[in-house]
């Protein structure tokens, strides 16, 4: 089930409201925009979307973890996608959003430039990512989805959150 608990803070955009059925989650992606590029993440990981709020910086966290925020009494880390993708930083504005994803029972917020909509991309319109990595974001791509003429870069949530080289090595070592 997609938990869209925090409707009031959702951006003023046109979301489909009929996704409360289990099977409708599959093949659905939340589209967002970072540095003039459209990305998508699987809706099953998304818990809610909140507006940007003051982030408290925490020392000794990985560089891409901007700090922590208060999500109704729960303190969660937030990652700035721009830092993760080594993109130039941008001032936060009223369109800046925090997408709260829940992976492996760990909630984490993703700071993005703006959130667009929820789209359906059938599995057969998702193709393999290009093998040649031309920038940092390529490391976190699960595939390229086509919606009409447009292209969405679909991110791999697990790699995005934990795809750090060190951790990847650790994971391999553990398995």
């Amino acid at each position, binding site marked *: 089930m997609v938990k869209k608990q925090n409707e009031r803070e959702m951006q003023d955009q046109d979301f489909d409201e009929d996704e409360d059925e289990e099977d409708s989650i599959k093949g659905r992606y939340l589209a967002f925009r970072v540095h003039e590029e459209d990305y998508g993440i699987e809706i099953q990981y998304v818990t809610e979307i909140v507006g940007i709020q003051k982030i408290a*910086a925490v*020392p*000794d*966290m990985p560089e891409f*973890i901007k700090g922590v925020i*208060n999500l109704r009494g729960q*303190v969660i880390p937030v990652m700035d996608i721009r830092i993760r993708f080594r993109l130039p930083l941008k001032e936060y504005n009223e369109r800046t959003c925090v997408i709260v994803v829940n992976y492996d029972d760990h909630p984490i917020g993703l700071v993005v430039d703006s959130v667009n909509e929820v789209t359906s991309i059938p599995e057969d319109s998702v193709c393999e990512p290009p093998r040649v990595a031309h920038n940092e974001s390529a490391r976190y791509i699960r595939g390229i989805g086509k919606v009409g003429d447009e292209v969405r870069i679909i991110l791999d949530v697990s790699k995005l959150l934990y795809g750090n080289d060190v951790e990847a090595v650790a994971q391999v070592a553990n398995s």
Partner: protein
Amino acid sequence: MDREYLASQELVETFIAESSDFLDEFEVQLIALADAENNPQAPAGATDSLMNNIFRLIHTIKGSAGSFGFKNISALAHRAENLLDDIRKKTIKLDRGRLELLQQSIDLFRILLSHIQKSKHDMDGSCQGDVLDLMMKLEQALKDRDPGGPNALSAMKELSSGFFVFDDDAPPPAAAPENSPSFKITDALRTSFLQESDETLQKVELSLLALATAKGLDANEHVEEAFRRIHSFKGNCGFMGYKDLSEVSHALETHLERLKINPALITDKLTETILRIVDAVKTTLYRIGQSGDDCMEDRESLIEYLESVLPVAPGRRAQIDLPEANAAVQEMPQLKALKSTATLENPASLNPVRNDIRVDLKKLDALINLVGELVIAETMVSGSLAAVGIENEQLDRAFHHLRRTTLDLQDISMSVRMVPVAQTFRKMTRLVHDTTQKLGKKSRLVLKGEDTEVDKTVIEQIADPLVHCVRNSIDHGLEMPDARRESGKDEMGTITLEARHEEGEIWIIIQDDGGGLRRDKILKRARERNLPGIERESTLTDSEVFNYIFEPGFSTAEQVTDVSGRGVGMDVVRKNIEKIKGRVRIESTAGQGTQIIFEIPLTLAIIDGMMVKVGDAKYTIPLLNIQESIILSPERVVMGPDGLKMVDLRSKFIPIVQLGHLFGQKDVAPLPDDGLVVIVEVTQNSLALHVDEILGQQQTVVKALPNSYKRSRAVSGCTILGNGEVSLILDVGGINDCLGEEYQNLISKVA
């Protein structure tokens, strides 16, 4: 019949938890009993009630272990029970050797329980030898009186065959009380029996009701469960001497056992009947509670009726004739009468009052979390209304009411996590007993303020320090009996454990009436080790001198014994207490004894903090660490040789820490020579934290930082401010460590 079946994990866990509680209790009572037995002045009644309690505990352990198929435990418990039974009947005495055996059994029980936790069975190769050995010893201890008793060989046979017949499969325990005239049921015993039974029966009912809808394996489990409960209920009834009840429950047990073997026999009719009988048992229990009358006049008809529904001879009439059973209902006027009494009396009034429940700690934490949020939300709402400038008397009153309610709610939700220290204190009974025995000293333990409540996390943290302090008090504090006599003291030393509320904190006090700390000895050792501060030896206050014993590796003991003397203990004590934001203090008078005092905050969930502003971030510094705050002036700032700035505070040079720098912010302005510094102290080390502004002091609710990424050492947690922002709580000890590392790096770079 195979008693081994797949018990669900949950049941096993309950069994482990319950048995551990029982063992703790057993241990305490056993020592009390031994003391009472060896003390001719003790009132005769005291030993009896202790004895009965002990007996009941071991019996329950045996019963439940047996029904779970934990053969080692039940076999061992069975032998311990036999021994205790004879002691109860006064045919043998509880001497030192026997006491020790029983204590060894307790230890072994604990080991076996931990095996169960790990592997779900109690047959572990590594301790099988111990079990057999102990069983033999227990039986040997019995033999003095009864040479014809079962020998060790039978113990081994039982174990290897994996087949058990319990003595209590028939209701003889019921007869036991009559045989021992010394037996007396105290009111407390009866109350706890009633409460326990009520709970047990309730669970039996639940299982039976679930049976109606369950099929196959599930049904089996429910029967199993009901059987087990009834079995332990029967045992308790027998022990309490309620003959009628134990007879009826025996009949119930027999029938349930047959259902267990042959689930096909289960019918709605039958469960209905069993439920009726359980009702009757409950009514009797209620009567016992009211008047002590345990008579069940209708017991025979009930048993008969039960047998008519499910005949006892399973060989010939395994198939039951339903219409016949139906007819039986009509023929039983007794049952009709029963029906009417059951409906007449309000069932709720039958239950003895039980006023506690077990709750998962996670649920509690979630509740406390939400309550904290509620308080914040309330502040935000009233704050924003005030900001808009709405003034309305009615609204004000409503908000006042809301605030009071939320604060009350917060208080209550906090208090839910509090548990009395009694259990932790009582565990020391055994320790004191064992240690004094080993050292050839004499002592007694006095507990005060056992009902004092402390946060559950705190309880967990003080257990180890308590052990160390108590051990130290006995080993180093108390003198040998001869020496005590010479100095005019009672041969028997006294160790007092006390818990009480003081200055908004909990104080745990460990006191002994021994020789006290020796200032000269401590100073001598401190000189040898050249500890800081020793150079002004003569001006050191007593408490400063006593504080040396917390130094790692510090010991004045001439030789290391297996009890203490390695100098590790007190170091651990201080570390643990500091972990829960507490302090340790020592008071000692030569020749009169020593007091060690743990001063611990009431709860870990709330700390007193000072909020400071650095850049645009707000940090919270635990008040406990703060010594003072001073305004810097250029002439007080000194540049150290390593480039670190230090502040000159009464000729003490304290390094100045820039939080922004420490937290890896890149655009940190160079440290100015003015502004504010907060002087913090941790483990005798001072630091000066440079801050822009001190915002004030407040109580804050501590929250954990997310643990999905590596945790920083410089922060211990965070708190949510009135406006919803997050403020990090600084860990002064951690900052000190980070700084030390940085300093090391600096040195290695230079070198």
